[in-house]
Structures are given as C-alpha cells and as structure tokens.
C-alpha cells in the first residue's frame, strides 16, 4: 500500500447522447497508485456528484477481466498501455506523477456511442445469433464421455473460446473489422467434433452477418491480436478464411 498520491491530468470524452457532439473535458485528479483505473473514474464521479454535475458514463461490471463490459481507449490504446489485460485490471501504478491521460470510448462505425464512454456493442451478438452455436436442444444428448476429444484439441478450442467479446479487436482495427471475434467463435466449434455438422453453414452465415452489421474487412494488420486482453491468436483468422473459402466452393448460396 502506498501513501504517495499521483497527480494526473485527464482528458475524458464527454458526449451527452448518440446524436450529440462530443468533446474532451479536462479533469485534475489525485489518486493512489493502488487504485485501479476504473476506481479513479469512480472517484472523479463521486466528486462530480458532490458538485451537482453529471457523472461520467462508462461501462464496467465484474472488474475481474472476464465479463468484457469495460473497454476504454486510454492514450490511444484499447484497454490502455499494459498488454493482455482489460481496462478494469489496469492499475494506476503504471502511470507517473504529472502524466496527462486521454480517455476515449471504443470507436467503430458498428459501435455507436450512447453516452460519454459507453458504446453499443450489440452488433457482435447479432453475429452470434446466426451461427455461434451447435444446433441441439436440451436433453437427448449422448453421455459426455461418448465424445472423446484429444487433450490438445480441447485446449486449442478453449483458447479460442476464451474471447470475452469486449470489442477491443474492433476498436484497435483501422478497418473496424470484427474478424478476430468472429474467427474465435468459428474456431472454437471448427476444432471440435460437435461443431462439424454445421461447420460450413456457420462460417458462411457469420461472415455474412458480420458484413451486414457494418464491420470492415480484415487486412492483416495484426492490431487486434496485439490489443486483445485474452491473447486470442490471429491464427483463428487464418482458420476462418480457410473454412470460408472451402465453404464458398461448396456453397449453394451463390451470390
């Protein structure tokens, strides 16, 4: 525990609503290096409320790096300067006394700002709703051990399934592409025997939905992988591409 406080200047994006014009607003703050970045915002909000001013709207929930609700662009980087963590896991000890910090929302055409730092990321779920599943009903499934899966295959599938759907990949991409997100879900199932019956249908449907939702295309800049808090690999994108082209060759949906 440290008693020395950091004095910081924050430039935070404030935008009253979707259609309103936003701007960066300055806030001076003194904060303990033990506090998290979001706890610093909590403290700013507490003092704003005491002064009858509207608190800064931002999203966060679990504050353990797993729900994917938080997501701020800090000094130009989604989830801030420390690799492989979410915004809620960023602590102030990574900043220096006197620093100026820019705080902005995730920006992408598909993620409109709703207020201040809070954006709408539901287009990601729209993609999942067309193919991010195995089409089985509850009950009537085989015993769990009737589907043997090699340990390393299960582990690879898990690595893809570890995506928390925060959208940092989209925010980091100059094209605002959702390829890393979509390819992680496609890969989780493509690697498992359970995912085989719908493998072709799934990848076609999800790629189509991704385009319809207004996400850009992938031009292999690798920015998504660099900023992903869960270390989702771009090899998933390669797998999606392979599956997609193979599906297109066999597809009946000629367009």
């Amino acid at each position, binding site marked *: *525990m440290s008693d020395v406080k950091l004095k910081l200047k924050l430039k935070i994006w404030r935008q009253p*609503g979707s259609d309103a014009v936003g701007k960066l607003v300055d806030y001076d703050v003194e*904060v*303990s290096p*033990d*506090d998290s970045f*979001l*706890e610093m915002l*909590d403290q700013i909000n*507490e003092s704003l*409320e005491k002064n*009858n*001013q*509207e*608190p800064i*709207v931002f*999203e966060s*929930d*679990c*504050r*353990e*790096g*797993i*729900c*994917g*609700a938080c997501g701020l662009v800090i000094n130009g980087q989604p989830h801030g300067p420390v690799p492989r*963590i979410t915004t809620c*896991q960023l602590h102030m*000890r990574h900043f220096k006394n006197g620093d100026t910090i820019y705080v902005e929302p995730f920006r992408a055409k598909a993620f409109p700002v*709703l*207020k201040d730092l*809070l954006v709408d*990321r*539901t287009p990601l779920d729209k993609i999942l*709703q*067309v193919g*991010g*599943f*195995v*089409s089985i*009903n*509850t*009950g009537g*499934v085989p*015993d*769990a051990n009737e*589907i*043997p899966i*090699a340990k390393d295959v*299960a*582990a690879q*599938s*898990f690595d893809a*399934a*570890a995506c*928390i*759907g925060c959208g940092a990949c989209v925010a980091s991409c100059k094209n605002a592409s959702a390829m890393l997100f979509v390819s992680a879900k496609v890969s*989780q199932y493509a690697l*498992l025997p*359970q995912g085989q019956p719908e493998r072709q249908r799934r990848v076609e449907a999800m790629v189509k939905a991704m385009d319809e939702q207004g996400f850009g295309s992938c031009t292999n800049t690798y920015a998504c992988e660099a900023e992903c808090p869960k270390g989702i690999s771009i090899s998933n994108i390669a797998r999606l591409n392979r599956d997609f082209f193979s599906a297109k060759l066999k597809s009946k949906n000629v367009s």
Partner: protein
Amino acid sequence: MAKLDSKVPAGNVQDKWTDHKFNMKLVNPANKRKYDVIVIGAGLAGASAAATMGELGYNVKLFTYHDSGRRAHSIAAQGGINAAKNYQNDGDSVYRLFYDTVKGGDFRAREANVHRLAEVSNSIIDQCVAQGVPFARDYGGLLDNRSFGGAQVSRTFYARGQTGQQLLLGAISALNRQIGLGNVKEYTRREMLEVVVVDDHARGVIVRNLVTGEVERHSAHAVVLATGGYSNVFFLSTNAMNCNGTAAWRSHKQGAYMANPCFTQIHPTCLPVHGEGQSKLALMSESLRNDGRIWVSKKKDDKRHANDIPEDERDYYLERKYPSFGNLTPRDIASRSAKEACDSGRGVNGGEAVNLDFKHAIERLGKNVIEERYGNLFEMYETITGKNPYKEPMNIYPAPHYTMGGLWVDYNLMSTIPGLFVLGEANFSDHGANRLGASALMQGLADGYFVIPYTIGNYLADNKDPLMSTDKEEFVQAEKRVTDHVEKLLAIKGTRTVDDFHKKLGRIMWNKVGMARNEKGLKEAISEISQLREEFWKDVNVIGSAGTLNQCLERAGRVADYLELGELMAKDALDRKESCGGHFRTEYQTEDGEAKRNDEEYAYVAAWEFKDTGNWELHKEDLEFENVKLSQRSYK
C-alpha cells in the same frame, strides 16, 4: 403464522422427481406457442431457462440489464461444476452428492430439492459437452475432474479457471440460437422494477429502458426471475458492480416471501481492501488452499514484513486448530478464523489481512510445479497488487461472495405469488446455510435446463387465460409505482452521494451482520439501517433526469432497496437463535468455538412476508430429514 406448503411430492426421495414429472400436466406442443413467458436475467439460470423454453415452443421474452447476456456475473465463476458422474471410479453417486450437499449446507436445505439437483447434475455435463463447452480433458480424450471442499470424491468438472465463463457462453449459445429462430425475443439494457400481479397471479413486469429511460409494460402468462444474489448489500463483495437485489426485492414487496435472508457466504480467499477508493473485492480461487499455508504473526500489531517474521513467531492457526483438515477447512470456518486472528490485532501490519504462503510448497515441489498449478492466479494477484507471490506471501481476507438466502420457492420453483418462478441464486432452496464450492453453477443450470421447463408446463396447463392487455388497471398502477419511485428519488436533491449511503450501509452490514453476529450488534444494525434509510430519503443527491441514460439513478434505486433488505437480513439473523453454516451467532457456539445448531427449535426455513417498510411477518416451513441424519459437523 401460517405453515408453508413446499409441495414436495410423496414417496422415496429417489423417486419423487421421476414420479412428479409423470404426474405433472403437459402442454400440447401445438399449444405452447399460445403462452408467453417472461424471463428476467441472462446468467446461467436465466439463459438456460429461456433457451430451453424457447426450444419447447413457448414465446419467451428475455430481459437483461446488460448489453448482452454474455456479461452476466455467472461468467466470473472460476473453479468448476459438480456432477455425480463417478467417472473417477472413486465411489461417487447421486446419493453421495445429495448427502454431501445437505451436510455441507449444515442441514438447513430441503432434502427433496437437493436430491433432484444431484439427479440432474449428470445431464448438465452431457448437455454442456454437446454444446461444445471445452471442458478440461485427459490424454485419453475423456473428461478430467478435480476435488473441491466438502467432498471426498473428485466430481468437479472444469475449464481451466474459467468454468463459469465457458458454461455461460454455452447457455448463451443455446439462447442465441433461439433468438435467431425467433422463439425468444431479447430485450437488452432493461431493468425490471416491478412485477404485475393480477388476481393474485404474476401476469407481467414493468421495466425501465436504461438507454432511453422509457418505462415499459410487458404482459405474460408467467414470470421467471433469475436475477442472482444480493451480496452487494455489503457494498464491497466479490459480485459484479451491477449485481443487485432489486427485481427480487420489488417482487417481495408484492407478495413473494423472502427466505433465510441472513444466510450469506463469506469467501475466505479474497484480496484485502486496499483503500477508500476500493470498488469491489477480487476473489482468489479456493484451490490455492491446497498448497498455500495460512498464517499470522503470534505478536499483536506486528509491523515487520512477512519475510522478516521467523518461523517460530508465526501462527499457522488453521493447522493448529483443525489438524486433520488444516488449511482446507470449509469456507465458513476458514473465514471466521481469519477474522478472529485479525480482530485480536495479529493480522498483517495489525490490519485486516492474513498471509497465504507458498514458500514451503515452492521449496517442496519447485517453482515450476506451483507455476503450473496456480500460474494464472499468481499473475492475477500480481496484476492487482503489484506484488510477487513467488517471493512473498499473498495477503488475503474474507469477503461476501454468495447468498444462500433468496425468494422462497416450492418444489416447483414457484414463489408465494402464483406464476412467479425463481431460479438460481435468486431462490433459497438448495444450499441451506452454506454452499459447497462448484455447486452454484450446478444449481443455476439444473433449474434452467431441467426443472423449470417441466414445472412451468404444469402451471400453464391450469392457467389458460388469454394474454392480458397492458392497459389493465394493475399494469397502470405498477407503472405508476415505478415512475413515482423514480421521481421521488430525483426530487430529493440532497447533499450526499448514492455511494456514500451504500458504503455506510455496507459498513453496518459487514461489522454487525457479517461473519460473526450477536444480539446486541444485530439490534444496533436494525436501528442504524432504518435511520440511514430515513437519511437517504431526505438527503441523497441523485443527479440527472429520468428520461435518459442515468447510471446514478440506477444505483440509487438499488441502494434504496438494499436499505430495506439489509434490515430484514439483520432481523432474520436476530430471530435465528442458533449458529449454522455461514450464520454464526457468537452466543451459540460450542466450547471450542464451533457453530452450535439448535435442531429442536430452528430446523425450519424462515420465510418473511412483507407488510410495510421495516415490518414483516414470519412464516415457517419445517424441514424434515428423512434420509440424512442430523449431526454436528466436525473438521478437527
């Protein structure tokens, strides 16, 4: 005082659920589309229930306050999910899982519900695997298991340290399929603020659109609450920031009884409070206690660094007090012992933290083995604290984690409002006074996949009235209650922030309704909470307006409810003059400081009926133990 009818079917405990499934009425497949069901919450219980009812053909409307069901706090569960598969050939069975759960709950759960939970546990694992949940596997390709507290068999299935995430994503995938097919309609960023009761039956809800501030009426034939627990009444807990008790509490005020509200679980291995600005407490997996040794200094107010305190000046208090279980005593006992050590001034730096030390394990097994077992947890600890647990002990302290109490439900998971069903952590039924590790995920999915899809049909078959118009007077009145409440909050324009009240309430709850309780403290808590509530309604400052995205208003509504719920928790704790599981009354302990139950007088579920603010009537459901023999738990 009326006796409550739990509607537990007759017969042997092993046959009850099978017989009941046969005896329940069915809704013909072609008729299911004539019924609308509202589900509130998209965690494990809500998502699995909505998906399964959608598959069956009901029209389901699902509401979540998140932008996506994927964010529900089930996602943060780490350790695993129990099931009686006996894949390890180590003597597990449905009956043993049932027995362990009743005993672990310190004999305050309903036997028939627990047996059903154990029965369906195996189907849950089958279901999740079929969905593509990537559970841990052994080299032969079959599923792997680990052990958890309170059991002598290996029955916990896991997906690294992210089991809750993978199970929730599985349930959400099933839900997404139904949304895509049009069987479930999803309403995101909606918070339920009222249940609509018509002719004593739940017939709809009032929700607030959290983006636009609009208040909406929704009608249905039945309402299913799967809204989680209320640990955030303590302000600091392991729960997510938005977890709250509002949907359950507003239903309670419309007639749903609240059962055993004082049964809360304090988890022993969480990170200690670091300062005033702290917003929540991070949980470190219970598995760390397999190799970590817990200790404090023998001296009071010892300011030395842990590494400078010599071996003979350390008190490994769990090993000393519980030689046979040592550092692996159940959660309630480990938590209380940490509190005792710190209350006596022997915590780290004289404060509220104890050491969890891996030095001996690293010496014995090597750093590599420890890294393999706990690497991600050590990393997480270092991310948060900036300290390296390979080089110095972790500092840990107990924190509120789970609430065993909740809305009272009968065997069909229906509350005392007919047509209002309650699933998962939001109900009270399966964990008694203490929940075992890896059982929360099991219960959420059992209720959602395998219980409610059956029991709701039985209810709907008898309640065939057409869908009600939302113009009906009861809907108008319920909406008015919501808008009045919101306007009242906004009109106060006092001087203190919402969080200021929440923190004060949290402190009262933690100090007087926390790990150790007594008559004096509980009476003080009741009067302090009611006084704080009065101050809140005079002096809180809720910024902004109703017709917009307003997080301050959202928090204010939840804190207003905590200020009532907290009082009931204290009242329930005061009324239960015994110690059991997570409820420890200092007046009722054995000579060596263990919880002392009073089965003669308190083997019942305390179900509270709301009369008016600060005023409840107690109803009792007697618990009968026909299969499990009541005994004193001993971990010496």
